[in-house]
């Protein structure tokens, strides 16, 4: 059959690379074909999610940050310093985590979705107009965040003035100084040209961008066991590929940024410099539990246990 798969980024960005690998694997091992729909071609994140839930699309990639409006617990991935920055640890964690593969699987199933895989898209970096060495440097900085309550809470706790802005206005907003900072994974800073309108990149290690690939549940359940295996294997091989692909991705994209704009400063905060951000994280964690109650708390605990268990 001909299946359709939509995602939130362009074909050459991480979600697009994953989707391409997934498509190749499925098409190599079965008679099925997959058509890919990059960002915007069928609508925005919430639109393609609804289309996947209705079975118009068979596969969809949506980051838990956006899923928060549907599944509040998914916002757990915005709790700062929950996830480690060590890529190898992360790679093991997403694969083996009980919270993801059992608890979240169930939550997605309630929404008519079969969770196939969650994978990391890289450490989130802040880009700003002025250097950032501590929370104090974020004081009075209008920092663009996605319209997500927990993210707003995080930057409030970091001392910035969180400013929710649609992505389309971020570049112009930075250029005209309406905002003075924003956060995203390194590859995104390069591919979207955001580096052109900011002067400092800072790694505080507060988060790793996570994304999730799902199938429509009715569609998935109706498949033969052989087809299910094709999909599972494709998801797993694309996962291995994307983990490998991302090794050094941040470095290579950072190099491209430095070539295009040599005056860009890149700072990785030391443990001491991170102290105030880490303190702020506790507030955000409390806010998360307040918002999601017992079930959120349980998932948070399970995630922490899983992270401990997958430490190298």
């Amino acid at each position, binding site marked *: 059959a001909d299946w359709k798969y939509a995602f939130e980024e362009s074909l050459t960005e991480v979600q697009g690379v994953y989707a391409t690998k997934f498509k190749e694997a499925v098409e190599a091992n079965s008679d099925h074909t997959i058509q890919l729909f990059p*960002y915007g071609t069928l609508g*925005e994140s919430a639109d393609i999610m609804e289309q996947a839930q*209705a079975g118009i699309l068979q596969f969809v990639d949506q980051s838990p940050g956006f899923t928060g409006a549907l599944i509040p617990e998914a916002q757990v991935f915005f709790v700062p310093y929950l996830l480690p920055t060590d890529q190898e640890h992360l790679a093991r964690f997403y694969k083996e985590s009980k919270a993801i593969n059992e608890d979240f699987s169930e939550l997605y199933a309630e929404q008519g979705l079969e969770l196939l895989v969650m994978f990391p898209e890289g450490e989130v970096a802040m880009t700003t107009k002025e250097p950032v060495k501590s929370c104090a440097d974020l004081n009075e900085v209008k920092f663009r965040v996605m319209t997500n309550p927990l993210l707003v809470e995080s930057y409030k706790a970091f001392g910035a003035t969180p400013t929710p802005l649609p992505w389309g206005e971020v570049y*112009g907003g930075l250029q005209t100084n*309406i905002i003075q900072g924003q956060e995203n994974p390194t590859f995104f800073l390069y591919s979207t*040209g955001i580096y052109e309108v900011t002067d400092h990149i800072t790694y505080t290690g507060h988060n790793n961008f996570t994304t999730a690939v799902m199938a429509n549940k009715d569609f998935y359940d109706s498949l033969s066991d052989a087809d299910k295996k094709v999909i599972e294997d494709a998801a797993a091989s694309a996962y291995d590929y994307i983990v490998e692909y991302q090794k050094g991705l941040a470095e290579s994209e950072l190099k491209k940024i430095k070539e295009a704009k040599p005056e860009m400063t890149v700072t990785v905060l030391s443990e001491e410099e991170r102290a105030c951000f880490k303190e702020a994280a506790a507030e955000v964690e409390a806010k998360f539990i307040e918002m999601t109650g017992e079930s959120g708390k349980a998932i948070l605990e399970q995630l922490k246990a899983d992270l401990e268990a997958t430490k190298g």
Partner: protein
Amino acid sequence: MALTIFLIMIVLLLLGFPMMIPLLVASFVGFLFMFGDIGKMDFMVQQIMAGIRPASLIAVPMFILAADIMTRGQSANRLIDMVMKFMGHVKGGLAVSTAAACTLFGAVSGSTQATVVAVGSPLRPRMLKAGYKDSFVLALIINASDIAFLIPPSIGMIIYGVISSTSISELFIAGIGPGLLLLVLFSAYSMVYAFINKVPTEPKASWAERGQAVRRAVWPLGFPVIIVGGIYGGIFSPTEAAAACVLYAVILEFIVFRSLNIPDIYRIAKSTGLITAVVFILIGAGAAFSWVISFAQVPQAILAAVGVADMGPKGVLAVISIAFFIGCMFVDPIVVILILVPIFAPVVKSVGLDPVLVGTIITLQVAIGSATPPFGCDIFTAIAIFKRPYIEVIRGIFPFTVMLLCVSVALIYFPQIALFLRDLAFR
């Protein structure tokens, strides 16, 4: 399927149905073809909602409101009087000033529809009074507003830059050359038009008269200050600048000039809402239609049939120009960029074209498309605002389309028009 729905659309359009109907019925039929029943048609509604969702669209009703307040009060007239005292004695002076005002306003506001409203509503009555034909006036306003796509900030270029991973700063600089070239061409045409049609000029004003006109326009000159200063000074986004203009217009007309009263603002707001609705439902219907086209992978099929992969760089550029030109005839420009750019990206790369040049050409086509019949958001806006029949609004557009197409061809053969400034700044 593609042929059927295009035919349905053209036929319904020509028969005089409200314009949302051809787009909606074509989408209905597309859904029927793809899913076999009406079970999935809820998603037409989803896409209509998606079409009117972008936050940047809010600038449109805001500028309509501000312009309406200015026009019915005194601000607009005082500004135009001032311009006329300086330009009135030149053949075609008013038309050239209109073209320049559209370019400047459009450049800053980033919205061509807002420009049609904000510059067009005060200047059109003035041009009619001066003896220009309405078809020329409407075409000039619509086309000069579209220069805004090319001069930064440009939403179209930002979106192109993001999905094609091209430097947005370079795109911005590359757009300036072709944008100014268009302004020069439009101005020249305006002067020729005024000369041939013997549009009368005003007697040359004395410096004392000019001084007085400037004094009368001091308060209204705050509008360009708010828009240009506010946006480039980092105080407002274009949408917010529009809202700030509303506030300033209210203060001027109600408190300073005392030319309007409270019932007036109610009526103006209502009329703004009506125009907004008439245009936005078309944007929504266009989004539903483009979803169908995108889902059915119609552009890919057409491109494969054309054999674009085997063409040289100039051939690819020509195909890109034509594809965007046709696409924007029917669908919102931003949506066309989102759908077509990823399809063309591999070809552009394989023939080694400069993505900045491609982006500039695409932006130009998008500008042409929004001002070219049968569909075009700026045509819709002009019809809704000026309450003129469709046929009259598009009657004078042809010469402008020819000038725009000349610039597109020139860009393909002389890319330096776009790249000169870019190379100066970045290479």
